């Protein structure tokens, strides 16, 4: 065991060395721009829960990420003469995805703060904005200024510009969450008294929800903080220059105003859906497609991961029981390492680390990560199952002249399977639930779709409830199915 600890640590150090970015950013002469143009596609990372800048809407019956930023992205792609591909990723993961080369640029209403400038480069500011305070409509006569919020619980999106601004509210108790939908829900359920939100975004929400009210907050801001810019990997100056040219044109012709009008129309579309009698019955029929798509992806990830997890687990278990010390050591190190690190980090690591070498779609990366993770757990289940079979069984098989493999396959394994069936079923159910973690890299599974529905429907709780029910139906039916097969294996 001691030896394995040592080797695992060495392995870790080597890996760390591999992924520490080299400080030196090579000057480039048009390489970045040429790369994008050679590939013929500009991959833009965004976080599509930020109307009117980026959000989902039905366009000609098809669900798309739309909004002002996306129209800017389209203009940039057009000017570069390439196609546009949009990747929807959680806001927190955008800059890692950029640095790991999963995307070419990031357009997500992102403010070029000094902190962010340390790791990425920014274009000129393409949209000057203001910052709002969001409160419950019923409080609109009580909370009228920043001063009136003194000492109260205030919500902000974690890692956002607003998180810094909220410090200007005296004695405020800050509640930082990743998702704006969650923050709005916290506001409506009285967990917080107010939120600091980007101006147009706050207006979009207040305009769609009569329980909410928003007003401009008089924060002191540095010039840079007052707007959104496009983010680039450091050193890709040719791309920055090209994008700045497009942005200059947009500014000249005042195109953002037009873009906002178009974006507003998409939002109105989702608003009318909620109008009139339809509100009661309409929710499921409007959004069931999202839940259905998410459920399919969740099932796909789970089934494929369990399949590969079983194969990997069986191999690892056999390696752990092998006579060869090297196999035993490798399997043990792998299992201990995977079990000793959070799946969230594993998913992000595989996605972002792979992005440094080749382009792995998020869904594939997610499935690989979940498979690699469950392989370790299944290996331990299989190992304990093989150990649980009485030694006499193998001896009886060998005494009949059966080879090692035949004995394992026909005698030991079927009995082990019966013993570990409940534990395997548990693992399958765990995977169904835990696979939701891949939503952090933008895989459109159930949790991800729930986030989408919450942001476009301006509904906080109902989507959560529906998702909970879907998970329950999935896991409950699976339990029943597994019990059925367990019964069929039972000959006692």
């Amino acid at each position, binding site marked *: 065991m001691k030896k394995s600890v040592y080797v695992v640590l060495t392995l870790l150090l080597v890996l760390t060395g591999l992924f520490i970015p080299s400080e030196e950013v090579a000057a480039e002469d048009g390489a970045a721009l040429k790369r994008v143009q050679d590939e013929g596609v500009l991959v833009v990372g965004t976080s599509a829960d930020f109307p009117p800048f980026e959000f989902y809407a039905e366009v000609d019956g098809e669900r798309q990420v739309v909004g002002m930023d996306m129209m800017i992205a389209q203009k940039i792609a057009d000017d570069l003469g390439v196609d546009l591909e949009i990747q929807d990723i959680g806001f927190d993961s955008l800059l890692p995805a950029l640095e790991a080369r999963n995307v070419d640029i990031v357009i997500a209403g992102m403010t070029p703060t000094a902190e962010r400038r340390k790791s990425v480069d920014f274009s000129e500011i393409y949209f000057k904005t203001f910052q709002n305070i969001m409160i419950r409509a019923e409080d609109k006569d009580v909370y009228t200024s920043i001063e009136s919020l003194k000492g109260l619980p205030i919500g902000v999106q974690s890692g956002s510009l607003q998180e810094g601004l909220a410090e200007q509210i005296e004695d405020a108790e800050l509640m930082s969450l990743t998702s704006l939908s969650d923050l709005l829900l916290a506001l409506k359920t009285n967990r917080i008294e107010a939120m600091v939100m980007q101006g147009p975004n706050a207006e979009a929400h207040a305009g769609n929800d009569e329980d909410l009210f928003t007003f401009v907050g008089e924060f002191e801001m540095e010039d840079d903080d007052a707007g959104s810019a496009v983010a680039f990997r450091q050193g890709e100056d040719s791309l920055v220059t090209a994008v700045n040219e497009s942005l200059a044109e947009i500014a000249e012709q005042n195109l953002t105003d037009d873009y906002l009008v178009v974006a507003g129309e998409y939002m109105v579309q989702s608003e009318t859906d909620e109008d009139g009698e339809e509100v009661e019955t309409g929710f499921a029929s409007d959004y069931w497609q999202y839940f259905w798509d998410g459920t399919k992806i969740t099932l796909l990830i789970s089934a494929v991961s369990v399949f590969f997890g079983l194969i990997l687990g069986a191999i690892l278990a056999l390696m752990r029981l092998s006579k060869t010390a090297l196999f035993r050591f490798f399997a043990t190190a792998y299992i201990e390492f995977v079990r000793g690190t959070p799946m969230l980090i594993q998913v992000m690591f595989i996605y972002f680390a792979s992005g440094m070498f080749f382009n792995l779609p998020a869904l594939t990366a997610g499935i690989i990560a979940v498979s690699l993770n469950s392989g370790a757990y299944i290996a331990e289940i299989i190992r304990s199952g093989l150990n649980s079979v009485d030694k006499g069984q193998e*001896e*009886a098989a060998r*005494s*009949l*002249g059966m*080879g090692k493999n035949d004995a394992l396959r026909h005698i030991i394994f079927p009995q082990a399977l019966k013993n570990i069936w409940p534990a395997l079923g548990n693992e399958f159910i765990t995977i169904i639930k835990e696979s939701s973690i891949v939503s952090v890299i933008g895989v459109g599974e159930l949790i991800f779709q729930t986030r989408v529905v919450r942001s476009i429907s301006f509904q906080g709780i109902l989507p959560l409830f529906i998702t909970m029910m879907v998970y329950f139906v999935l896991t409950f039916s699976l339990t029943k199915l597994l019990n059925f097969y367990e019964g069929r294996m039972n*000959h006692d």
Partner: protein
Amino acid sequence: MIKVNHLKKSFGKNVVLKDINEEFNQGEVVVVIGPSGSGKSTFLRCLNLLEEPTDGEVVFEGTALTGLKEKDLNELRQKMGMVFQQFNLFPHKTAQENLTIAPVKSKGVSQASAERKAVDLLNQVGLGDKVAAYPASLSGGQQQRVAIARALAMDPDVMLFDEPTSALDPEMVGEVLKVMKDLAQSGMTMVVVTHEMGFAREVADRVLFMDDGYIVEQGTPEHIFTQPTHERTQDFLAKVL
């Protein structure tokens, strides 16, 4: 048929078999007796290499088993049936499947002929009506008879028994011994570790007395049971008879 030369076996520092030289001939029934822990099971298990001997050799039908490749060893093991104290039937298979799995998977016998043979053998051990029964639904005596039939299904040249009746309730011992007697009468070569002195007296051609890792004394049943020459044999028999 089986020749054992200078067989030694230790588990770590524990030397269990010290120097065994023995020969078993075609058609012979040999009973091995001795106090618990004297190495009887280990000796028996060394004969088909379920235990790897530490030193010495085991020659079966002219081939030294010690040092054989896995595949060749498996082929020779098919000719050495073994019956265990704890039956070790395959619980996920019916009586018939217990008898067919090894012939079909390892010997290349066709499923149909293996099944026919299984039914015959189960009839032979008096369990013709238990063809489709799972082990868990059988009594200990019935399970052990299925286990004997399972070993016979491979058409072995020799049968090794390790205390086949020790785990049975007393009323079931008789039915298993009866099957073994029939087998002996049919001319099967048998090596039987047992505490059933009656069986030894009646069926054995030769009795070996083991103690402390050696074969201390051997001879016909009459010789061993009526006029044992060795003091340790006398002590042992005084206790069990």
